Protein backbone atom coordinates (compact mmCIF):
# COMPACT_ATOMS: atom_id res chain seq x y z
CA UNK A 1 0.00 0.00 0.00
CA UNK A 2 1.48 3.33 -1.02
CA UNK A 3 1.37 6.52 1.04
CA UNK A 4 -1.88 5.95 2.92
CA UNK A 5 -2.25 7.17 6.49
CA UNK A 6 -4.68 6.76 9.36
CA UNK A 7 -5.51 10.12 10.96
CA UNK A 8 -8.28 9.11 13.34
CA UNK A 9 -9.61 6.07 15.18
CA UNK A 10 -12.63 5.37 17.36
CA UNK A 11 -13.70 2.34 19.36
CA UNK A 12 -16.95 1.71 21.19
CA UNK A 13 -16.25 -0.20 24.43
CA UNK A 14 -16.88 -3.94 24.03
CA UNK A 15 -19.40 -6.03 25.93
CA UNK A 16 -23.12 -6.73 25.72
CA UNK A 17 -25.38 -3.76 25.02
CA UNK A 18 -28.86 -5.22 24.49
CA UNK A 19 -30.58 -1.81 24.64
CA UNK A 20 -28.25 -0.04 22.22
CA UNK A 21 -28.69 -0.53 18.45
CA UNK A 22 -25.53 -1.40 16.52
CA UNK A 23 -26.11 1.74 14.44
CA UNK A 24 -25.83 3.83 17.63
CA UNK A 25 -22.59 2.00 18.50
CA UNK A 26 -21.31 2.71 14.99
CA UNK A 27 -22.21 6.40 15.40
CA UNK A 28 -20.21 6.62 18.64
CA UNK A 29 -17.16 4.99 17.03
CA UNK A 30 -17.41 7.26 13.96
CA UNK A 31 -17.75 10.40 16.07
CA UNK A 32 -14.74 9.44 18.17
CA UNK A 33 -12.70 8.76 15.00
CA UNK A 34 -13.76 12.06 13.37
CA UNK A 35 -12.97 14.00 16.55
CA UNK A 36 -9.63 12.22 16.82
CA UNK A 37 -8.86 13.15 13.20
CA UNK A 38 -10.24 16.67 13.44
CA UNK A 39 -12.64 16.18 10.53
CA UNK A 40 -16.42 16.36 10.19
CA UNK A 41 -19.05 14.24 8.44
CA UNK A 42 -19.01 16.51 5.38
CA UNK A 43 -15.32 15.66 4.83
CA UNK A 44 -16.02 11.94 4.33
CA UNK A 45 -15.94 10.96 0.65
CA UNK A 46 -16.15 7.16 0.76
CA UNK A 47 -17.38 4.56 3.25
CA UNK A 48 -16.22 0.98 3.69
CA UNK A 49 -18.34 -0.95 6.16
CA UNK A 50 -18.22 -4.42 7.67
CA UNK A 51 -21.24 -6.40 6.57
CA UNK A 52 -22.81 -8.31 9.47
CA UNK A 53 -23.81 -11.95 9.49
CA UNK A 54 -26.59 -11.76 12.06
CA UNK A 55 -28.25 -8.41 11.45
CA UNK A 56 -30.58 -9.32 8.59
CA UNK A 57 -30.84 -7.03 5.58
CA UNK A 58 -29.82 -4.00 7.64
CA UNK A 59 -26.75 -5.85 8.84
CA UNK A 60 -25.73 -6.98 5.37
CA UNK A 61 -25.95 -3.42 4.03
CA UNK A 62 -24.57 -1.97 7.26
CA UNK A 63 -22.64 0.89 5.65
CA UNK A 64 -25.66 2.04 3.69
CA UNK A 65 -27.71 2.23 6.90
CA UNK A 66 -24.84 3.84 8.79
CA UNK A 67 -24.66 6.61 6.18
CA UNK A 68 -28.37 7.21 6.75
CA UNK A 69 -27.87 7.37 10.53
CA UNK A 70 -25.12 9.95 10.15
CA UNK A 71 -27.07 11.86 7.48
CA UNK A 72 -27.40 10.88 3.81
CA UNK A 73 -24.94 12.76 1.65
CA UNK A 74 -24.79 10.46 -1.35
CA UNK A 75 -21.43 9.02 -0.21
CA UNK A 76 -20.25 5.90 -2.08
CA UNK A 77 -20.60 2.87 0.22
CA UNK A 78 -18.98 -0.55 -0.04
CA UNK A 79 -20.25 -3.26 2.32
CA UNK A 80 -17.58 -5.88 2.92
CA UNK A 81 -17.77 -9.36 4.38
CA UNK A 82 -14.78 -11.71 4.67
CA UNK A 83 -16.00 -13.48 7.82
CA UNK A 84 -13.95 -12.60 10.91
CA UNK A 85 -11.23 -11.28 8.60
CA UNK A 86 -13.57 -8.45 7.60
CA UNK A 87 -11.71 -5.80 9.65
CA UNK A 88 -8.42 -6.26 7.79
CA UNK A 89 -10.30 -6.58 4.52
CA UNK A 90 -12.13 -3.29 5.13
CA UNK A 91 -8.84 -1.56 5.81
CA UNK A 92 -7.44 -2.94 2.55
CA UNK A 93 -10.42 -1.69 0.55
CA UNK A 94 -10.37 1.69 2.32
CA UNK A 95 -6.63 2.09 1.65
CA UNK A 96 -7.17 1.12 -1.99
CA UNK A 97 -9.86 3.82 -2.27
CA UNK A 98 -7.35 6.41 -1.03
CA UNK A 99 -4.40 5.08 -3.05
CA UNK A 100 -6.45 4.94 -6.26
CA UNK A 101 -7.62 8.50 -5.83
CA UNK A 102 -11.27 7.42 -5.66
CA UNK A 103 -11.71 9.57 -2.57
CA UNK A 104 -9.62 11.99 -0.54
CA UNK A 105 -10.97 10.93 2.82
CA UNK A 106 -12.33 7.49 3.61
CA UNK A 107 -14.25 6.22 6.61
CA UNK A 108 -13.97 2.54 7.47
CA UNK A 109 -16.48 1.44 10.09
CA UNK A 110 -17.75 -1.81 11.52
CA UNK A 111 -20.30 -2.42 14.24
CA UNK A 112 -21.40 -5.88 15.18
CA UNK A 113 -23.61 -7.66 17.64
CA UNK A 114 -22.46 -11.23 17.66
CA UNK A 115 -24.64 -14.22 18.38
CA UNK A 116 -24.36 -15.56 21.93
CA UNK A 117 -22.14 -18.54 22.74
CA UNK A 118 -21.12 -20.89 19.93
CA UNK A 119 -21.85 -19.20 16.62
CA UNK A 120 -24.91 -20.51 14.84
CA UNK A 121 -25.10 -20.17 11.08
CA UNK A 122 -27.16 -18.61 8.38
CA UNK A 123 -30.07 -20.33 6.70
CA UNK A 124 -29.42 -21.94 3.33
CA UNK A 125 -32.26 -21.29 0.91
CA UNK A 126 -31.05 -23.57 -1.89
CA UNK A 127 -29.59 -26.86 -0.66
CA UNK A 128 -27.46 -28.58 -3.27
CA UNK A 129 -27.59 -32.23 -4.42
CA UNK A 130 -24.54 -32.94 -2.24
CA UNK A 131 -25.00 -31.35 1.21
CA UNK A 132 -22.79 -28.35 1.97
CA UNK A 133 -20.02 -28.62 4.56
CA UNK A 134 -22.03 -26.35 6.87
CA UNK A 135 -25.13 -28.54 6.68
CA UNK A 136 -23.01 -31.57 7.53
CA UNK A 137 -21.24 -29.98 10.47
CA UNK A 138 -24.46 -28.60 11.94
CA UNK A 139 -25.78 -32.15 11.99
CA UNK A 140 -22.52 -33.64 13.26
CA UNK A 141 -22.34 -31.12 16.14
CA UNK A 142 -19.06 -29.47 15.07
CA UNK A 143 -19.05 -25.78 16.12
CA UNK A 144 -15.97 -23.62 15.43
CA UNK A 145 -13.94 -24.45 18.57
CA UNK A 146 -13.92 -28.16 17.67
CA UNK A 147 -11.81 -27.29 14.63
CA UNK A 148 -9.36 -25.40 16.84
CA UNK A 149 -9.27 -28.27 19.33
CA UNK A 150 -8.41 -30.72 16.56
CA UNK A 151 -5.46 -28.55 15.52
CA UNK A 152 -4.34 -28.09 19.12
CA UNK A 153 -4.39 -31.84 19.65
CA UNK A 154 -1.98 -32.18 16.72
CA UNK A 155 0.40 -29.64 18.30
CA UNK A 156 0.32 -31.49 21.61
CA UNK A 157 1.27 -34.74 19.87
CA UNK A 158 3.91 -33.13 17.64
CA UNK A 159 5.56 -30.51 19.86
CA UNK A 160 4.61 -31.48 23.41
CA UNK A 161 2.48 -28.37 24.06
CA UNK A 162 0.50 -28.91 27.28
CA UNK A 163 -2.82 -27.90 28.83
CA UNK A 164 -0.84 -25.65 31.20
CA UNK A 165 0.54 -23.75 28.20
CA UNK A 166 -2.99 -23.08 27.00
CA UNK A 167 -3.91 -21.75 30.43
CA UNK A 168 -0.79 -19.58 30.51
CA UNK A 169 -1.83 -17.96 27.23
CA UNK A 170 -5.10 -16.83 28.83
CA UNK A 171 -3.27 -15.55 31.90
CA UNK A 172 -0.84 -13.54 29.75
CA UNK A 173 -3.67 -11.99 27.71
CA UNK A 174 -5.71 -11.19 30.83
CA UNK A 175 -2.74 -9.27 32.29
CA UNK A 176 -2.82 -7.06 29.21
CA UNK A 177 -6.61 -6.76 29.06
CA UNK A 178 -6.97 -5.65 32.67
CA UNK A 179 -5.08 -2.47 31.71
CA UNK A 180 -7.43 -1.63 28.82
CA UNK A 181 -10.50 0.50 29.67
CA UNK A 182 -12.21 -0.49 26.40
CA UNK A 183 -11.96 -4.25 27.07
CA UNK A 184 -14.97 -6.26 28.22
CA UNK A 185 -13.02 -8.34 30.75
CA UNK A 186 -10.62 -6.21 32.74
CA UNK A 187 -9.29 -8.65 35.29
CA UNK A 188 -6.39 -11.01 35.66
CA UNK A 189 -6.95 -14.76 35.58
CA UNK A 190 -4.75 -17.37 37.29
CA UNK A 191 -3.51 -20.63 35.76
CA UNK A 192 -5.46 -22.58 38.41
CA UNK A 193 -8.66 -20.69 37.61
CA UNK A 194 -8.32 -21.30 33.88
CA UNK A 195 -7.56 -25.01 34.37
CA UNK A 196 -10.63 -25.25 36.64
CA UNK A 197 -12.93 -23.81 33.95
CA UNK A 198 -15.17 -26.15 31.97
CA UNK A 199 -13.52 -28.39 29.37
CA UNK A 200 -15.55 -27.32 26.34
CA UNK A 201 -13.92 -29.23 23.50
CA UNK A 202 -10.93 -31.19 24.66
CA UNK A 203 -8.22 -29.79 25.06
CA UNK A 204 -9.73 -26.26 24.98
CA UNK A 205 -11.37 -24.91 28.13
CA UNK A 206 -14.00 -22.19 28.54
CA UNK A 207 -11.54 -19.42 29.46
CA UNK A 208 -9.25 -20.39 26.58
CA UNK A 209 -11.93 -19.67 23.97
CA UNK A 210 -12.94 -16.05 23.39
CA UNK A 211 -16.45 -14.91 24.27
CA UNK A 212 -18.81 -13.28 21.76
CA UNK A 213 -19.42 -9.55 22.21
CA UNK A 214 -21.00 -6.42 20.82
CA UNK A 215 -18.44 -3.92 19.55
CA UNK A 216 -17.76 -1.21 17.01
CA UNK A 217 -14.72 0.53 15.58
CA UNK A 218 -13.95 3.19 13.00
CA UNK A 219 -10.94 4.73 11.27
CA UNK A 220 -10.39 7.73 9.00
CA UNK A 221 -7.87 7.32 6.15
CA UNK A 222 -6.35 9.76 3.70
CA UNK A 223 -3.11 10.21 1.79
CA UNK A 224 0.13 10.77 3.72
CA UNK A 225 0.36 14.17 2.08
CA UNK A 226 -3.16 15.24 3.08
CA UNK A 227 -2.63 13.86 6.60
CA UNK A 228 -0.17 16.69 7.29
CA UNK A 229 -3.13 19.11 7.35
CA UNK A 230 -4.62 17.27 10.31
CA UNK A 231 -1.84 15.81 12.43
CA UNK A 232 1.87 15.82 13.09
CA UNK A 233 1.63 12.11 13.97
CA UNK A 234 -0.06 10.25 11.11
CA UNK A 235 0.15 6.48 11.27
CA UNK A 236 1.17 4.98 7.95
CA UNK A 237 -0.34 1.77 6.55
CA UNK A 238 2.77 0.07 5.17
CA UNK A 239 0.95 -3.17 4.42
CA UNK A 240 -2.65 -4.32 4.24
CA UNK A 241 -2.63 -7.76 2.68
CA UNK A 242 -5.28 -10.39 2.13
CA UNK A 243 -4.76 -14.14 2.14
CA UNK A 244 -6.66 -17.23 1.10
CA UNK A 245 -5.66 -20.90 1.51
CA UNK A 246 -3.12 -22.88 -0.46
CA UNK A 247 -4.18 -26.19 -1.96
CA UNK A 248 -3.00 -29.04 0.25
CA UNK A 249 -3.30 -27.13 3.54
CA UNK A 250 -3.09 -29.70 6.35
CA UNK A 251 -5.50 -27.67 8.53
CA UNK A 252 -9.18 -28.58 8.84
CA UNK A 253 -10.53 -25.08 8.35
CA UNK A 254 -14.06 -24.17 9.34
CA UNK A 255 -16.43 -25.56 7.95
CA UNK A 256 -14.86 -28.49 6.04
CA UNK A 257 -15.40 -32.16 6.86
CA UNK A 258 -12.39 -33.32 4.83
CA UNK A 259 -8.89 -32.18 3.93
CA UNK A 260 -6.31 -33.11 1.31
CA UNK A 261 -2.98 -32.46 3.04
CA UNK A 262 0.07 -32.14 0.78
CA UNK A 263 3.72 -32.11 1.93
CA UNK A 264 5.31 -28.73 2.47
CA UNK A 265 2.10 -26.70 2.70
CA UNK A 266 1.99 -24.63 5.92
CA UNK A 267 -0.66 -24.97 8.62
CA UNK A 268 -3.35 -22.23 8.37
CA UNK A 269 -1.93 -21.43 4.96
CA UNK A 270 -4.32 -18.51 4.38
CA UNK A 271 -2.79 -16.82 7.43
CA UNK A 272 0.76 -17.72 6.37
CA UNK A 273 0.04 -16.22 2.94
CA UNK A 274 -1.39 -12.95 4.32
CA UNK A 275 1.42 -12.48 6.87
CA UNK A 276 4.18 -13.09 4.34
CA UNK A 277 2.45 -10.98 1.70
CA UNK A 278 2.31 -8.17 4.28
CA UNK A 279 6.03 -8.50 5.07
CA UNK A 280 6.79 -8.34 1.34
CA UNK A 281 4.51 -5.38 0.79
CA UNK A 282 5.96 -3.42 3.72
CA UNK A 283 9.56 -4.42 3.05
CA UNK A 284 10.02 -5.44 6.68
CA UNK A 285 10.49 -8.75 8.48
CA UNK A 286 9.35 -10.20 11.80
CA UNK A 287 12.41 -8.73 13.57
CA UNK A 288 11.16 -5.24 12.68
CA UNK A 289 7.80 -5.74 14.40
CA UNK A 290 7.54 -4.22 17.90
CA UNK A 291 4.22 -5.82 18.91
CA UNK A 292 1.50 -7.96 17.35
CA UNK A 293 -2.28 -7.99 17.63
CA UNK A 294 -2.95 -11.53 16.45
CA UNK A 295 -6.37 -13.21 16.32
CA UNK A 296 -6.59 -14.95 19.69
CA UNK A 297 -9.96 -16.58 19.06
CA UNK A 298 -8.59 -19.39 21.24
CA UNK A 299 -5.35 -20.11 23.09
CA UNK A 300 -4.41 -22.41 20.19
CA UNK A 301 -4.49 -19.43 17.83
CA UNK A 302 -1.90 -17.55 19.89
CA UNK A 303 0.59 -20.41 19.78
CA UNK A 304 -0.02 -21.13 16.11
CA UNK A 305 0.01 -17.53 14.86
CA UNK A 306 3.23 -16.73 16.74
CA UNK A 307 4.84 -19.37 14.54
CA UNK A 308 2.87 -18.71 11.36
CA UNK A 309 3.86 -15.02 11.49
CA UNK A 310 7.51 -16.10 11.89
CA UNK A 311 8.09 -14.71 15.38
CA UNK A 312 9.69 -18.06 16.18
CA UNK A 313 10.35 -21.39 14.50
CA UNK A 314 7.72 -24.10 14.20
CA UNK A 315 7.11 -25.82 17.53
CA UNK A 316 8.81 -23.15 19.65
CA UNK A 317 5.83 -20.97 20.60
CA UNK A 318 5.41 -22.55 24.03
CA UNK A 319 9.08 -22.01 24.85
CA UNK A 320 8.63 -18.34 23.88
CA UNK A 321 5.53 -18.12 26.07
CA UNK A 322 7.42 -19.67 29.00
CA UNK A 323 10.29 -17.18 28.54
CA UNK A 324 7.89 -14.21 28.65
CA UNK A 325 8.53 -13.21 25.01
CA UNK A 326 4.80 -12.57 24.43
CA UNK A 327 4.19 -10.34 27.46
CA UNK A 328 4.35 -6.53 27.39
CA UNK A 329 8.04 -5.87 28.00
CA UNK A 330 8.97 -9.13 26.27
CA UNK A 331 10.58 -9.71 22.88
CA UNK A 332 7.40 -9.38 20.82
CA UNK A 333 4.37 -8.50 22.96
CA UNK A 334 1.22 -10.34 21.85
CA UNK A 335 -2.11 -8.51 21.98
CA UNK A 336 -1.19 -5.62 24.28
CA UNK A 337 -4.90 -4.68 24.02
CA UNK A 338 -5.79 -7.92 25.82
CA UNK A 339 -6.96 -9.42 22.54
CA UNK A 340 -10.26 -11.11 21.77
CA UNK A 341 -9.66 -13.01 25.00
CA UNK A 342 -10.37 -9.74 26.86
CA UNK A 343 -12.72 -8.14 24.30
CA UNK A 344 -14.72 -11.08 22.98
CA UNK A 345 -15.34 -11.53 19.27
CA UNK A 346 -17.56 -9.02 17.52
CA UNK A 347 -16.89 -10.77 14.27
CA UNK A 348 -16.86 -8.07 11.61
CA UNK A 349 -15.55 -5.36 13.96
CA UNK A 350 -12.75 -7.17 15.77
CA UNK A 351 -10.09 -6.20 13.25
CA UNK A 352 -10.81 -2.61 14.21
CA UNK A 353 -10.31 -3.29 17.91
CA UNK A 354 -6.82 -4.41 16.86
CA UNK A 355 -6.40 -1.35 14.63
CA UNK A 356 -7.40 1.02 17.44
CA UNK A 357 -4.82 -0.54 19.75
CA UNK A 358 -2.10 -0.42 17.09
CA UNK A 359 -2.68 3.28 16.42
CA UNK A 360 -2.69 4.13 20.14
CA UNK A 361 0.45 2.05 20.76
CA UNK A 362 2.26 3.76 17.90
CA UNK A 363 1.21 7.16 19.25
CA UNK A 364 2.65 6.08 22.59
CA UNK A 365 -0.51 6.84 24.59
CA UNK A 366 -1.29 3.43 26.12
CA UNK A 367 -0.22 4.21 29.67
CA UNK A 368 0.46 1.11 31.76
CA UNK A 369 0.14 -1.22 28.78
CA UNK A 370 2.38 0.83 26.49
CA UNK A 371 4.95 -1.16 24.51
CA UNK A 372 8.00 1.03 25.03
CA UNK A 373 9.53 2.43 21.87
CA UNK A 374 6.91 0.90 19.57
CA UNK A 375 7.47 2.06 15.98
CA UNK A 376 5.99 -0.75 13.88
CA UNK A 377 2.95 -2.86 14.77
CA UNK A 378 1.34 -5.79 13.01
CA UNK A 379 -2.07 -7.40 13.17
CA UNK A 380 -3.77 -10.36 11.61
CA UNK A 381 -7.40 -11.47 11.60
CA UNK A 382 -8.60 -15.04 11.13
CA UNK A 383 -11.85 -15.71 9.31
CA UNK A 384 -13.86 -18.84 8.67
CA UNK A 385 -13.62 -20.60 5.31
CA UNK A 386 -10.02 -19.42 4.74
CA UNK A 387 -10.53 -15.66 4.91
CA UNK A 388 -7.53 -13.74 6.18
CA UNK A 389 -5.92 -10.31 6.35
CA UNK A 390 -2.70 -8.92 7.82
CA UNK A 391 -1.86 -5.27 8.47
CA UNK A 392 1.42 -3.51 9.29
CA UNK A 393 1.38 0.07 10.57
CA UNK A 394 4.32 2.41 11.14
CA UNK A 395 4.56 5.67 13.02
Amino acid at each position, binding site marked *: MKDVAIIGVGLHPWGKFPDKPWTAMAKDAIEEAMKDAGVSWKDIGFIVSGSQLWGGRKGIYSGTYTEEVMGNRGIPVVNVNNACATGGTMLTVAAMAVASGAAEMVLAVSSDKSAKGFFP*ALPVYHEEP*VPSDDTLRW*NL*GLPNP*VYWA*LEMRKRMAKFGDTEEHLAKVKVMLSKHGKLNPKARYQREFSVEEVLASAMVTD*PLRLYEICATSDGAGAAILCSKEKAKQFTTKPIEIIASALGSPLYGDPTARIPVVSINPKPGVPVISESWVAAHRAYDEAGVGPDDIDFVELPDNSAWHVLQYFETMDFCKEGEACACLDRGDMAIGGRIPVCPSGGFSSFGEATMAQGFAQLYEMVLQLRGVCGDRQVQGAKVGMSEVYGAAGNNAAVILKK
Partner: protein
Amino acid sequence: MAENKQVLIGENLFDMSEGKPSLIVTHCKSCGTYFFPKSFTCHNPECVGKDVETTNLSRQGKVENYSVMNYPPPTPFVTQEPYEPIVCAAVEFPEGITIIGMMEGVTAEQVKIGMDVEVTVGTIYTKKTGDEVIAWKFKAV
Protein backbone atom coordinates in the same frame (compact mmCIF):
# COMPACT_ATOMS: atom_id res chain seq x y z
CA MET B 1 -47.42 -47.00 16.58
CA ALA B 2 -45.46 -46.81 13.38
CA GLU B 3 -41.83 -47.87 13.55
CA ASN B 4 -39.33 -45.03 13.57
CA LYS B 5 -37.63 -44.45 10.26
CA GLN B 6 -33.95 -43.96 9.58
CA VAL B 7 -33.18 -40.88 7.51
CA LEU B 8 -29.82 -39.99 6.00
CA ILE B 9 -27.90 -36.87 7.04
CA GLY B 10 -27.70 -36.19 3.29
CA GLU B 11 -27.68 -37.83 -0.11
CA ASN B 12 -24.57 -39.00 -1.99
CA LEU B 13 -22.42 -39.43 1.13
CA PHE B 14 -22.13 -43.16 1.80
CA ASP B 15 -22.82 -46.39 -0.05
CA MET B 16 -24.39 -49.36 1.74
CA SER B 17 -24.82 -51.58 -1.32
CA GLU B 18 -21.88 -53.89 -0.49
CA GLY B 19 -23.27 -54.67 2.95
CA LYS B 20 -20.62 -52.63 4.72
CA PRO B 21 -20.69 -48.84 4.44
CA SER B 22 -18.18 -46.91 2.34
CA LEU B 23 -17.83 -43.16 1.91
CA ILE B 24 -18.66 -41.91 -1.57
CA VAL B 25 -15.85 -39.78 -2.95
CA THR B 26 -14.80 -38.08 -6.14
CA HIS B 27 -11.56 -39.42 -7.60
CA CYS B 28 -9.64 -37.32 -10.09
CA LYS B 29 -8.19 -39.69 -12.69
CA SER B 30 -5.91 -36.91 -13.94
CA CYS B 31 -4.06 -36.10 -10.69
CA GLY B 32 -5.15 -38.89 -8.33
CA THR B 33 -6.75 -36.71 -5.65
CA TYR B 34 -9.86 -37.78 -3.71
CA PHE B 35 -12.58 -35.40 -2.49
CA PHE B 36 -15.35 -35.81 0.10
CA PRO B 37 -18.19 -35.04 -0.15
CA LYS B 38 -18.15 -35.75 -3.86
CA SER B 39 -17.61 -32.83 -6.17
CA PHE B 40 -18.35 -31.96 -9.80
CA THR B 41 -14.70 -31.01 -10.38
CA CYS B 42 -11.13 -31.49 -9.16
CA HIS B 43 -9.90 -28.64 -6.94
CA ASN B 44 -6.17 -29.16 -7.45
CA PRO B 45 -4.90 -25.94 -9.12
CA GLU B 46 -2.00 -27.87 -10.71
CA CYS B 47 -4.35 -30.39 -12.34
CA VAL B 48 -5.14 -29.68 -15.97
CA GLY B 49 -7.21 -32.76 -16.84
CA LYS B 50 -9.80 -32.61 -14.07
CA ASP B 51 -11.28 -35.91 -15.28
CA VAL B 52 -13.33 -36.98 -12.28
CA GLU B 53 -15.24 -40.15 -11.39
CA THR B 54 -17.36 -41.21 -8.43
CA THR B 55 -16.01 -44.12 -6.40
CA ASN B 56 -15.94 -45.55 -2.87
CA LEU B 57 -13.15 -44.79 -0.42
CA SER B 58 -11.36 -47.65 1.35
CA ARG B 59 -13.09 -48.58 4.57
CA GLN B 60 -10.23 -48.30 7.06
CA GLY B 61 -8.06 -45.43 8.25
CA LYS B 62 -6.12 -44.11 11.24
CA VAL B 63 -7.11 -41.43 13.78
CA GLU B 64 -4.92 -38.40 13.04
CA ASN B 65 -6.35 -36.26 15.86
CA TYR B 66 -9.53 -35.96 17.90
CA SER B 67 -11.54 -33.85 20.30
CA VAL B 68 -14.39 -34.43 22.71
CA MET B 69 -17.18 -31.88 22.48
CA ASN B 70 -18.70 -31.67 25.94
CA TYR B 71 -21.47 -29.09 25.40
CA PRO B 72 -24.28 -28.93 22.85
CA PRO B 73 -23.95 -26.10 20.33
CA PRO B 74 -27.08 -24.04 19.48
CA THR B 75 -29.36 -24.34 16.44
CA PRO B 76 -28.95 -24.87 13.56
CA PHE B 77 -26.58 -27.46 15.04
CA VAL B 78 -28.58 -30.53 15.97
CA THR B 79 -27.55 -33.02 18.64
CA GLN B 80 -29.01 -35.98 20.49
CA GLU B 81 -31.16 -35.18 23.55
CA PRO B 82 -30.24 -35.58 26.32
CA TYR B 83 -26.82 -34.48 25.10
CA GLU B 84 -23.91 -36.88 25.44
CA PRO B 85 -20.34 -35.68 24.81
CA ILE B 86 -19.38 -36.25 21.16
CA VAL B 87 -16.03 -37.85 20.41
CA CYS B 88 -15.03 -36.58 16.98
CA ALA B 89 -11.97 -37.57 15.02
CA ALA B 90 -10.06 -36.65 11.89
CA VAL B 91 -9.23 -39.94 10.16
CA GLU B 92 -6.50 -40.38 7.54
CA PHE B 93 -7.29 -42.79 4.72
CA PRO B 94 -4.73 -44.57 2.52
CA GLU B 95 -5.90 -42.50 -0.47
CA GLY B 96 -4.40 -39.37 1.17
CA ILE B 97 -7.64 -37.75 2.30
CA THR B 98 -8.53 -36.96 5.94
CA ILE B 99 -12.19 -37.02 6.94
CA ILE B 100 -13.85 -35.70 10.10
CA GLY B 101 -16.66 -37.56 11.78
CA MET B 102 -18.07 -38.87 15.04
CA MET B 103 -16.51 -41.87 16.75
CA GLU B 104 -18.74 -44.70 17.90
CA GLY B 105 -18.18 -46.96 20.87
CA VAL B 106 -15.23 -45.12 22.42
CA THR B 107 -14.99 -42.82 25.42
CA ALA B 108 -12.87 -39.70 25.74
CA GLU B 109 -10.31 -41.81 27.62
CA GLN B 110 -10.16 -44.55 25.01
CA VAL B 111 -9.70 -42.52 21.81
CA LYS B 112 -6.04 -42.29 20.75
CA ILE B 113 -4.03 -40.81 17.90
CA GLY B 114 -2.98 -43.60 15.52
CA MET B 115 -5.97 -45.80 16.39
CA ASP B 116 -7.11 -48.01 13.48
CA VAL B 117 -10.74 -47.37 12.65
CA GLU B 118 -13.29 -48.43 10.05
CA VAL B 119 -16.17 -46.53 8.51
CA THR B 120 -19.55 -47.37 9.92
CA VAL B 121 -22.97 -45.79 9.77
CA GLY B 122 -25.02 -44.96 12.83
CA THR B 123 -27.53 -42.67 14.49
CA ILE B 124 -26.25 -39.19 15.26
CA TYR B 125 -29.50 -37.89 16.77
CA THR B 126 -33.21 -38.64 16.96
CA LYS B 127 -35.64 -36.11 15.55
CA LYS B 128 -38.70 -34.93 17.51
CA THR B 129 -40.76 -37.13 15.15
CA GLY B 130 -38.82 -40.14 16.41
CA ASP B 131 -36.95 -40.58 13.12
CA GLU B 132 -33.28 -41.41 13.53
CA VAL B 133 -30.80 -39.38 11.50
CA ILE B 134 -27.86 -41.50 10.39
CA ALA B 135 -24.40 -40.44 9.22
CA TRP B 136 -20.96 -41.90 8.69
CA LYS B 137 -19.06 -42.67 11.88
CA PHE B 138 -15.77 -44.30 12.78
CA LYS B 139 -15.35 -47.40 14.95
CA ALA B 140 -12.16 -48.94 16.35
CA VAL B 141 -11.08 -52.19 14.67
